[in-house]
């Protein structure tokens, strides 16, 4: 059971057992039984969703327990439609009955509520703004599915655009171990889920992202050494099979 700083404090029960004996030591046994009111945390997501993976990684970084509910893309649950009526999308984090939507807003929420460990954002406002800028850049630019949904010249253009975006990100990373510097942070969390799509991109695009962007792939492999990341990211080949299935469903290729 876990509790965060915003929750009802634990109820502590003290049982003091005293064994009275005039000639001997007075023994005091003090038992403290801490009963914490447990947080109810539910994550609605879909296993291949890079946006859902961001939340899983953030929760794992904070070592927070939660219930995971898998959503079916083609048959969304009534719960999902109730808690995210505006976008009807995953991920949604439901914390003690309150729904938080949009992956980056959820990650920031998690960072604020469980603020006693593994900070995901810097404390300095200027660096926070920089982190948010790059997370937003990833959001707007790195999520394109065009490489596996197009052919011919359209696909070539999509590949060029994606490599250009990755090179900009490489430039921002520089020599740092993580985008957050020494600390794995918001930008790393925003981007690393897309690493699970690299195999798919390579196969469909008939190229090698590692050859084009070695610094970025080295960063991704570094992130994969973190338990929060390797335990959250799905198998790359499983993602590829899924994309093939979805393409078939939508009649692409």
């Amino acid at each position, binding site marked *: 059971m876990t509790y965060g700083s*915003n929750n009802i404090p634990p109820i502590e029960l003290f049982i003091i057992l005293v064994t009275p004996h005039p000639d001997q030591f007075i023994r005091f046994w003090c038992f403290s039984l801490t009963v914490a009111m447990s947080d109810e945390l539910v994550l609605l997501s879909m296993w291949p969703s890079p946006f859902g993976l961001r939340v899983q990684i953030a929760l794992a970084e904070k070592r927070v327990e939660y219930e995971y509910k898998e959503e079916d893309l083609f048959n969304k649950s009534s719960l999902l439609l109730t808690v995210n009526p*505006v976008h009807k999308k995953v991920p949604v984090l439901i*914390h003690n009955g*309150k729904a*938080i*939507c*949009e992956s980056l*807003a*959820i990650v*920031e*929420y998690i960072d*604020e*509520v469980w603020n006693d460990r593994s900070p995901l954002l810097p404390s300095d*406002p*200027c660096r*926070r*703004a920089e982190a*948010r*800028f790059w997370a*937003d*850049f990833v959001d707007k630019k790195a999520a394109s599915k065009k490489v596996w949904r197009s052919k011919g010249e359209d696909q070539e253009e999509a590949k060029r655009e994606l490599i250009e975006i990755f090179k*900009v990100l490489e430039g921002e990373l520089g020599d740092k171990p993580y985008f957050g510097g020494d600390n794995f942070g918001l930008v790393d969390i925003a981007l690393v889920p897309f690493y699970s799509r690299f195999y798919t991109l390579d196969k469909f695009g008939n190229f090698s992202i590692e050859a084009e962007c070695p610094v970025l792939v080295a960063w991704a492999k570094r992130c994969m050494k973190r338990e929060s990341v390797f335990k959250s990211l799905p198998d790359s080949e499983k993602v590829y099979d899924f994309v093939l299935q979805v393409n078939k469903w939508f009649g692409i290729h």
Partner: protein
Amino acid sequence: MADEVILLDFWPSPFGMRVRVALAEKGIEYEYKEENLSDKSPLLLKMNPVKKQIPVLIHNGKPVCESLIIVRYIDEVWKHKSPLLPSDAYQRAHAMFWADYVDKKIYSLARQVWLSSGEEHEAGKNELMGCFKLLEGELGDKTYFGDDTFGIVDVALIPFYSWFYMFEQCGNMSIEAECPKLVAWGKRCMEKESVSKSLPDQHKVYDLLMDLKKKFLAK
């Protein structure tokens, strides 16, 4: 040492207006620099090399880009007055959700109503009105989106109030008739000095947008 605050902006930009409103709410003095978007200054290209877009806030030489990120930065640095975000984590996430909704939806639809024609224009207009109605639902009976306090969602959306005359002319519709609560909210916001001094006149915006439209269509 006094803060040096510079805003690189373009007067009809709703994104630039957000920053102007936030700075005014906090009573921050700054230097306003008008950018010519068809001839961007070396300063803009240096301060925002990735996107090359306004607005950019330059605070003691360091740039901050993307309007909502700038608004949050302003709120975090100048926390002595007029908080733009709630203090509760959940309320903050809720506010960011709606600010993000405005960001994702309104500008692209506004552009559609402004520049396109035929079916695309009709679709844009209908979807825009749909978004406004949804926002009205979220506003409900509250004074502002931030409840009693003017907050980030209000800051995100109010600049589009200066585009309402253009929507009505190009869309051949009355926003007040379709979304009276939203227009009432807009007028309420305009009573705040931080807003009325930051937003340009609706007719001036319309004239410029029509000029730009002619140039855009000529290409």
